[in-house]
């Protein structure tokens, strides 16, 4: 199973409802976005004028560059296929690609907020929510989860549900019968370029050449970002050391349990 999201830009009217519904659903702080709509044009293309939209979100890529750069110590984690109940145990850092549904997820408990994954994504799909910074982290990486907690309850992703144009088609790209796969047949493509070929599972369909040209030209990343894994590793070590120090201190100080969880400087993470 491989979840994917097709966006039909013929249908999209650029209303931004997807963005705002996501904000409400996941209480995403105003300045961050798990998804976005960029209004493109009106601009001239080789096929005439275009005025279209780039509704973007995490592409849950086939080879996600955000996963290997995570410096957090790996742990063994057992994952289960929601459908068959089959399990697999993997060694994962604080972010990984789910072997059963293909989504890329984050362990918010273990994330240290170093920002390596954010920097590694050519689509800028991740952000560090510094509001969640505490003594052990600089914040938490966050991004679109394809609304897996909603899907687990039998609901559609929030952005799909609210879309008045039915421009967002969410489904299993491994299932040739799914509407999403039908769109691939029709020519839905990912925002890729010669240098960026990481198998995005977010795909775009538009019947107008002008619109697709403008979308690809303006929104497909042209190069892979360079990430300093050394810096991320150092950050991980620094935070680990700090955590040890704090634990020593905590023994004598009542009330610190909460204090270390919620208080202490949003500034620290900025």
């Amino acid at each position, binding site marked *: 199973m491989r979840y994917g999201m097709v966006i039909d830009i013929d249908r999209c009217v650029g209303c931004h409802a997807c963005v705002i519904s996501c904000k409400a659903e996941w209480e995403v702080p105003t300045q961050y976005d798990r998804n976005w709509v960029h209004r493109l044009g009106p601009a001239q293309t080789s096929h005439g004028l275009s005025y279209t939209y780039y509704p973007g979100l995490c592409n849950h890529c086939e080879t996600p560059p955000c996963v290997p750069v995570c410096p957090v110590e790996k742990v063994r984690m057992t994952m289960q296929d929601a459908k068959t109940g089959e399990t697999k145990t993997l060694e994962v850092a604080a972010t990984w690609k789910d072997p059963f549904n293909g989504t890329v997820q984050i362990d918010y408990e273990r994330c240290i907020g170093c920002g390596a994954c954010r920097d590694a994504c050519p689509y800028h799909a991740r952000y560090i929510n510094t509001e969640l910074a505490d003594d052990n982290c600089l914040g938490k990486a966050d991004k679109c989860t394809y609304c897996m907690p909603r899907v687990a309850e039998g609901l559609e992703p929030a952005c799909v549900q609210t879309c008045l144009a039915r421009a967002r088609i969410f489904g299993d790209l491994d299932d040739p019968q799914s509407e999403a796969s039908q769109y691939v047949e029709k020519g839905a493509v990912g925002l890729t370029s010669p240098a960026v070929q990481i198998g995005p599972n977010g795909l775009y369909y538009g019947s107008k050449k002008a619109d697709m040209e403008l979308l690809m030209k303006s929104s497909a990343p042209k190069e892979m970002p360079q990430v300093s894994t050394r810096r991320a590793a150092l950050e991980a070590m620094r935070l680990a050391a700090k955590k040890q120090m704090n634990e020593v201190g905590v023994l004598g100080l009542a009330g610190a349990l909460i204090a270390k*969880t919620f208080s202490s400087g949003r500034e620290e993470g900025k």
Partner: protein
Amino acid sequence: MLQANSAVYTSPGTDAQKEAAKLADIYTLLAQLMRYPEDTANVALLVQAQLELVLALGWHEEAEMLRCWHAQCQGLPGDLRIEYTQLFITAATRCSTVPPYASVHADSEALLQGRTTERIHDFYRSCGYELASVAEPADHIWLQLDFLAALVHEGRHTEGEQFLASFFRPWFATFKEKCFQATAHPVYRVTLTLIDFFTKEEQ
């Protein structure tokens, strides 16, 4: 305004408990000063108590500011009401109000009824307290101070300290700073200084 649904701690005993009760009184006074000054007689009492507290602390400068204001003030509670409205409710032509709700300063959304409001409300409940009225969000500063007063009065200092560390201090500093930028009014500047003094982390 906060109602306890657990029994109030009333053991008569130690000095510490009596002293706690007095600290609770101070929090109550500060809570009252952060409410809208509606009742004239009550307001007169509050500002008098504020002055006495400042004198007892030996804060001569603040005491002088308050005395000056007491001398010049033309009619309570009108003066305070206008100031309170400008500072905390709606001030069209001044440099904007400073809403006295934690979520507006602690959450980046800067909305009322934010996640911080929900957490603070949950904390009240986990300590056995509920809001007596739903008209104001749970994180209005006067409700928080009232809650602190209640905890301290019961001798629940651990929870009090937890509350201060987790919920109160993280936003209060920003709030106070914004208020100081927005007002020169001695009653509110001194109240905020007092709140700071009685809530900041002990060294």
